[in-house]
């Protein structure tokens, strides 16, 4: 079952208008993703850590998520330094570790951690339905927003149906292996899942028609932008300016 452990909380960041948080997170992530110099990236990691502290997230949950992402960056550390052509940093027997590959891996690691932590502190601290409503208010197209919300609503139902089908297979002695029977069974289960989801979508649509649905959704969320929001916005703006300045300083050299 999917959970939203970060969405419950009562820190300063949880109280900031979700629209402001989304805007800040977007600008911040883009700037960090485009930065290339280490002073900038190190500052960004520091700033993201500060956001995590402000959001008062449980360190354990944060670390678990970071480990998942960094298992991917570990893969990059294994591949990039060996394949990126350029000046050789170290030679170990027949293997050459390239300088530019090491730098690239380090950049990606710092960037992804900084962005991930910022998103945890700013975006994961709202429920998905709040996120949807906020995106709606930020004038993202209705269709995208409702696709997001509907997917989120029915992913649980579809997961339950998948579990039901899997159980039905398991209680009759199905044990997955590397054989044609297994592939065929999985194909049947996935196929059945599609059929059931399509039927479900049809019934949901009918239920919506019964309640007078006219292809228009309404958003009940009330958002307000007050002093705290502008304070937060200004702070994030300053942080982004500092990052840009550091980047520009290095680029000039």
């Amino acid at each position, binding site marked *: 079952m999917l959970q939203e452990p970060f969405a419950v909380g009562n820190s300063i960041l949880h109280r900031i208008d979700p629209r402001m948080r989304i805007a800040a997170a977007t600008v911040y992530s883009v700037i960090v993703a485009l930065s290339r110099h280490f002073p900038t990236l190190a500052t960004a990691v520091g700033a993201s850590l500060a956001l995590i502290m402000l959001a008062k997230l449980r360190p354990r949950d944060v670390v678990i998520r970071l480990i998942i992402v960094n298992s991917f960056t570990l893969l990059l550390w294994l591949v990039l330094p060996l394949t990126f052509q350029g000046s050789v940093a170290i030679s170990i027997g027949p293997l050459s570790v390239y300088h530019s590959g090491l730098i690239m891996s380090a950049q990606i690691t710092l960037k992804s951690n900084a962005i991930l932590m910022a998103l945890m502190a700013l975006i994961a601290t709202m429920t998905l*339905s709040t996120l*949807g409503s906020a995106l709606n208010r930020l004038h993202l197209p209705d269709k995208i927003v409702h696709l997001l919300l509907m997917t989120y609503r029915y992913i649980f139902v579809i997961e339950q149906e998948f579990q039901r089908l899997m159980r039905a297979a398991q209680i009759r002695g199905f044990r997955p292996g590397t054989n044609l029977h297994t592939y065929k069974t999985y194909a049947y289960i996935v196929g059945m899942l599609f059929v059931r989801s399509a039927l479900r979508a049809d019934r949901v649509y009918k239920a919506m*028609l*019964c309640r*007078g649905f006219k292809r228009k959704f309404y958003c*009940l969320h009330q958002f307000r932008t007050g002093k705290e929001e502008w304070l937060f916005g200004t702070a994030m703006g300053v942080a982004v300016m500092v990052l840009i300045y550091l980047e520009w300083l290095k680029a000039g050299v």
Partner: protein
Amino acid sequence: MNSAPPIIHLKDIHFSYPGGKAVLNHLDFKFYRGDRTGLIAPNGSGKTTLFHLIMGLVKPSSGKIELFGKPVSTARDFEDVRRRIGLLFQDPDDQLFSPTVMEDVAFGPLNLGKSKSEAQTIAHRTLAYLGLEGFEDRITYKLSGGEKRLVSLATVLAMEPEVLLLDEPLNGLDVDTRAKIEEIIFNLDLSYIIISHDIDFLLSTTAQIYTIKNGKILFDDKLQIHAHRHAHPHGQYPHEHE
């Protein structure tokens, strides 16, 4: 019966699913204001189809439907009807698609052109009526089965319909929730048709019980009050039947 025209009148309805055999065959059915009707029939006999026909969700192969004294056939006709007839689906997960309870209950009133604050007032009132105060911000998929059923009833009642069509409202509920829903339905000041397999429930909430046989609706007088034996939960304890 009364002299006013029926509010639901199905004339010589024929319906079959593509490639299948006829589900409903020369079906005639009249439903008057104030009627409380039960429908008990085997699986696959076309009960749910009947409800979907009345709501205009499926089209009959032939025959005429008159609702509130007017013939209905186009999608536009049915749009007006849907605000006056509320359908409770068998599976609450089909009915509750919004992230929160409040948004789901307010969805109908908003579609009827109510303002946001009006819709929220109606939603609060409906939830309170069903004993669901404080449910407004609950996440729909995290509700229990009984809560889901009550909330989906709230989404239908929030439309302030004149007629309710209830498709197996007790399906999959525990004893306590069944009793609660039964009481709520009994106290509704509305005309309604209930589909159920539970004869005790129909006897206590409806005035007449019909069945569907060979694609036709029959008044089932055999199903009226009769002595019967049956098994049900905790049947060994002394209890009363109405």
